């Protein structure tokens, strides 16, 4: 019992770590460095603040990757009593997302090399370098979305398992189901609608609420003791 509460707390902490670094990597850094539609200004910004890009974007994403890996396992442990197969599928989908996001860092490497002014790139004009940088920036955001497609499966299963569990409040599960629906709409819109770049607020808000409410609940309350023990008696 003690250890399951410890796992719940750790999951809460990791969730918040991910949220904080994700805000840095996916909101703060892009908003400071990327000038939409202006390749020259964007490249100028990245060149000027290379260290910020390295630490803020790449460094943050690396921390997120390892946190995601551990979080996937902790959530599996927390929800396994409800349904072992479904919680394993949820964990594996989160792992797949993490792996895709890990590989997606290759786009940032291309950008860092292109702006580094390495001698072997001198065959390209400045305009060509700039447009390649924009290409890989866009590719990075698509790569990110492909990963999120797997998070959708994870979040929907998580929502279902939380509702069934009884040791977490049902409302948290419902929030995740709504968020999962938001992820579906968001990723398919990005893939299908050419002009779709920013997530509309009515999708972003439910996602944000679920991603903050659940970690806070894990941190403050953890799992409901009696209900948890009931489940484990059943499965034992």
């Amino acid at each position: 019992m003690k250890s399951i509460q410890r796992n719940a707390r750790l999951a809460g902490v990791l969730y918040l770590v991910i949220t904080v670094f994700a805000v840095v990597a996916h909101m703060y850094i892009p908003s400071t460095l990327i000038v939409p539609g202006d390749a020259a200004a964007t490249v100028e910004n990245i060149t000027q603040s290379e260290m910020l890009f390295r630490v803020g974007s790449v460094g943050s994403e690396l921390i997120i990757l390892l946190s995601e890996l551990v979080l996937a396992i902790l959530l599996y442990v927390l929800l396994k009593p409800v349904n072992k197969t479904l919680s394993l599928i949820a964990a594996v989908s989160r792992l797949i997302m993490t792996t895709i996001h890990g590989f997606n860092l290759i786009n940032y490497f291309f950008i860092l090399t292109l702006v580094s002014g390495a001698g072997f790139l001198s065959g390209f004009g400045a305009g060509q370098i700039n447009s390649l940088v924009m290409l890989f920036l866009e590719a990075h955001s698509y790569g990110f979305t492909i990963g999120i497609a797997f998070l959708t499966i994870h979040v929907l299963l998580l929502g279902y398992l939380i509702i069934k569990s009884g040791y977490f409040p049902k409302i948290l599960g419902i929030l995740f189901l709504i968020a999962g629906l938001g992820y579906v709409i968001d990723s398919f819109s990005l893939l299908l609608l050419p002009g779709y770049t920013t997530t509309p607020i009515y999708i972003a808000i439910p996602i944000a609420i679920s991603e903050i409410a659940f970690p806070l609940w894990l941190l403050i309350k953890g799992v409901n003791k009696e209900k948890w023990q009931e489940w484990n008696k059943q499965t034992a």
Partner: protein
Amino acid sequence: MNEIENIKNPKKMARIAGVLYLIIFIVYPLASFLGKSQIIVPGNAMATAKNILENETLFRIGIAGETIIFLVELILAGIFYELLKPVSTSLSLASAFARVAEAIIQAVNLLPSILALLLVSGGAYLTVFSPEQLNALMLLFMDSFNFMIIVWGFFFGFHLLLMGYLVAKSDLFPKFLGILLILGGVGYLLQSFGTFLLPQFETLLATIVLILATPSELAFTLYLLIKGVKGQKLSQ
């Protein structure tokens, strides 16, 4: 101890793991020497392109070698999950996840080599680029291959930390092997974080990982091959 008896033939599984490790020990240096370091001239796109064209077979053998490695890694992830599960199911699952993530990133990392090969092989549709530009793109991709080694090294380092802890705790292996593996993990993580944040120390960091990781992996391989596991009969 009870749960260890549930594992079918731990000694046999450990021996298989030893043989698989041995395959990596032979194939990995060969693949990276013949297929990569002997062919790629850092910073010199023209010389690299010439080398790839003249040694296309070696380059392809390198790619085939990398394929063998990530397939072997996948099986190793499964074997160590089974062997170390009695210590902690969730930690050994986390450790296996990290190794699977590593293997997947290694697999997708064949892509840069293929792109490089296509760029230098002179497809008619590429003639709109100048030879200098084609070579530059090729070197950009080959450099990204090295960068992705850092990314999978990050997952692998984390895997070694977890596995080291489990091996140290396990009744199947001597404690010092676990400690050595943890040191190896620290080496990989230092290299991965360090190369991102302080790229100027890349060579030094690569030496550190060699010093920290090689003894642990060599000792572990030998132990798996010779002893298998502690105090278990071959057939139970």
